[in-house]
């Protein structure tokens, strides 16, 4: 066992591992020298450099060193904690060390990769970072994760195609599933569509099939005309209140899926929109369903109200919608002239590109305009500056179709506040990480799928519905799970410092801090996400942010600054 300090706590015995990452780090700086430097730092009792610390060999080297040198802290200087911290944590845990006794130093992504022309500067920086990392390591404390029981039931918000897909998937896995829809019937945007690209399936056929499955599902309860009213609790144990036509339904669920979809932008005041001869793509599809089109000249304008300053994003579904509808018109009567005024056409993948090719073959005309010179709509013709030939053209129409974007629902903000999840700049829901956790929210047990996150087509909405359900089932399939141990904490010793000012309660975004029955501040660890704002705010500095304590952060500052304190 490692030697104990006066206070009975083990004296830190730090092992530092410097990763070459092949030539990614080792190609620019001298990793052997850096490891030797690490060996000169306080409390560092072992140092080595590895070709790849994350490889089997590297991980074994860490495990062996823990055994041989009785290490109680491990520092790896390599890539980034955002991808590799879990691996190294697991590695030291396998050797019996608490996983929080690991510290990561980023000398690749934030050092050798960004200072490739300055090896000396990069080395000096790596030295400082290793010194800071080792200093923090000596202050690290073992933390316990909290175990919470899981209610194997789910709530899916939104009865559109994404929500129905998610709910069905959960139902089929045997989880009790509750599906709420704010309208009086299922379907969402699918109800207003006509034919679905890329293979012109009838929207109604698909809708009826999915709806039929929802109605037949044995573990699934449907609430229409229902909205979410209250949410309390944490992963595995969300107590929710649903408002269904004025009456309340109370449920306890383990996971929540947000699949509220998006709304269609109505182009009031744009291009003379009137809903009759100047319509949106959605209104065109209603006309098509009713066989109510008798136009000789159809013009479609793309990117109406999108990809501009106000709505900088691409709505992603409008190009294919326009092409599909243009083809339907052409196929019905090849003599109808269809002209598409576009800025850029996005038809990714084989099927979508094929649709575009077919549209050209069938004689749909494409005219490119620019944001700087938008088309001008007159009574019976459109004046458009053709970017390709550099001339203004006059195109007659008797039906003008405006391709408008999907926009975030008005009530997203209220829902986001209820669920304590973020929205992005355009008020769509923001996932925890675009690549690493694309269907999760940062809040444990809350998931996202479909157009609530970003405009998606039906195929993608279904895929994402399944994805969200699958992510939810990773929680629901356990009887209990462990949640993050690096949370804020009011130590017993500090309780007397607390004056009950409640500033911490006010700044906590997750309602993780409450005043309990004894009128004491209590932090519910299962709810806390460890952001640390309460600790940085606490007027008495009584709250400790585990794993990012004042002492730990100051040790990094001092290690960099170098002045005795």
């Amino acid at each position: 066992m490692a030697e104990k300090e006066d206070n009975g706590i083990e004296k830190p015995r730090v092992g530092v591992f410097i990763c070459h990452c092949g030539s990614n780090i080792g190609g620019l700086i001298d990793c052997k020298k850096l490891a030797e430097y690490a060996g000169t730092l306080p409390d560092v009792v072992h140092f080595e450099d590895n070709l790849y610390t994350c490889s089997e060999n590297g991980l074994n080297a860490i495990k062996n060193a823990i055994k041989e040198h009785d290490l109680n802290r491990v520092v790896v200087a390599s890539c980034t904690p955002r991808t590799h911290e879990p691996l190294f944590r697991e590695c030291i845990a396998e050797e019996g060390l608490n996983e929080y006794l690991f510290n990561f130093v980023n000398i690749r992504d934030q050092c050798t990769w960004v200072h490739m022309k300055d090896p000396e500067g990069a080395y000096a920086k790596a030295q400082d970072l290793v010194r800071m990392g080792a200093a923090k390591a000596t202050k690290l404390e073992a933390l316990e994760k909290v175990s919470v029981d899981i209610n194997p039931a789910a709530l899916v918000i939104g009865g559109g195609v994404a929500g129905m897909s998610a709910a069905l998937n959960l139902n089929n896995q045997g989880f009790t599933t509750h599906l709420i829809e704010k309208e009086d019937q299922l379907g969402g945007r699918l109800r207003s569509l006509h034919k679905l690209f890329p293979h012109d399936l009838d929207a109604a056929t698909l809708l009826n099939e999915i709806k039929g499955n929802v109605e037949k599902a044995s573990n699934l309860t449907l609430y229409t005309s229902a909205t979410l009213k209250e949410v309390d609790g944490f992963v595995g144990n969300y107590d929710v209140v649903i408002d269904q036509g004025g009456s309340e339904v109370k449920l306890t669920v383990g996971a929540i899926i947000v699949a509220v979809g998006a709304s269609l932008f109505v182009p009031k005041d744009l291009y003379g929109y009137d809903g009759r001869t100047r319509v949106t793509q959605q209104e065109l599809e209603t006309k098509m369903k009713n066989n109510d089109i008798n136009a000789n000249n159809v013009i479609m304008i793309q990117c109406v109200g999108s990809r501009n300053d106000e709505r900088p994003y691409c709505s992603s579904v409008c190009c294919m919608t326009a092409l599909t509808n243009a083809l339907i018109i052409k196929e019905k009567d090849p003599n109808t002239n269809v002209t598409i005024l576009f800025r850029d056409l996005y038809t990714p993948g084989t099927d979508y590109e094929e649709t575009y090719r077919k549209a050209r073959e069938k004689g749909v005309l494409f005219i490119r305009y620019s944001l700087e010179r938008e088309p001008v709509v007159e009574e019976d013709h459109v004046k458009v500056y053709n970017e390709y030939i550099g001339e203004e053209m006059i195109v007659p129409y008797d039906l003008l179709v405006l391709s408008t974007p999907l926009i975030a629902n008005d009530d997203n903000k209220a829902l986001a506040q209820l669920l304590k999840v973020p929205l992005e700049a355009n008020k769509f829901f923001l996932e925890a990480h675009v690549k690493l956790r694309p269907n999760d929210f940062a809040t444990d047990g809350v998931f996202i799928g479909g157009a609530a996150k970003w405009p998606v087509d039906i195929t993608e909405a279904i895929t994402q519905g399944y994805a969200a359900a699958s992510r939810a089932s990773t929680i629901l399939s356990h009887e209990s799970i462990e949640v993050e141990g690096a949370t804020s904490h009011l130590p017993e010793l500090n309780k007397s410092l607390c004056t009950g000012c409640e500033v911490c309660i006010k700044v906590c975004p997750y309602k993780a801090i409450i005043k309990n029955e004894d009128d004491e501040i209590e932090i519910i660890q299962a709810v806390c996400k460890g952001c640390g704002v309460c600790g940085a705010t606490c007027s008495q500095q009584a709250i400790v942010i585990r794993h990012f304590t004042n002492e730990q952060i100051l040790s990094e500052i001092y290690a960099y600054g170098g002045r005795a304190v």
Partner: protein
Amino acid sequence: MSFEPKILGFLCNWCSYAGADLAGVSRIQYPPNMRVIRVMCSGRVDPMFIFQALQQGIDGVFVMGCHPGDCHYLEGNYEAEKKFDMTVKFLKMIDLDNRIRLDWVSASEGVRFGQVVSDFIDHIRELGPSPVSGENPDENLLIKLMAMEVAAGTDRMRALVGRERKLIEEENAYGELVPEEKFNEIFDSAIHDEYIRARILLSLNKDPKSVKDLALEIEIDPSEILENILILKGRAQVDMQEIVGITPIYMRT
């Protein structure tokens, strides 16, 4: 040798740290002057860290978080901004406010990360070394920095910063909204008072002094010193030690 600034960056895990990683993956090149401390949220950056970093002789401190509205923790970056603004207000008194910066970098802004870091390094390079850096730091400034840290750490300042958003945007315990102007007035006078009090406390830590001596050292009017001594007495932080002639001498309790 040209001046190479020593810069410390506090990066939030979810946006700016990820942006910094992306800069790496994209091989965006920028000067190597900044050392990074990763925090989960920019709202974790206690003003104490910035004051301590400056006392360590670090030339510039950069705090980076998620863009407004994009915070992984919903509103942590707004809290970060409030804490940062207070720190700036203190540092303005000694002209060091331009050595700290707050900016937002998202996880997808690798290029921008490189730009804002380069820009800050250039900015600090232009300012030159911090007056409290190096072998012979300006001791007077160091004392002032220390006093600011103490002042910013008082429960009064911390409670004000913690409540600011709620008070201005929602309402106080009496159901009133505090107008921003009014709040700023209270806030600015609190900064001034707590700073003077911290100076008095730090000075009395060394040895007991008269009001006159304190006024000379801190370079403010004796009447203001006396006013604050009385408040500190009320807080049981200062007491009268003795009376020499007709002059009371004060000490720390």
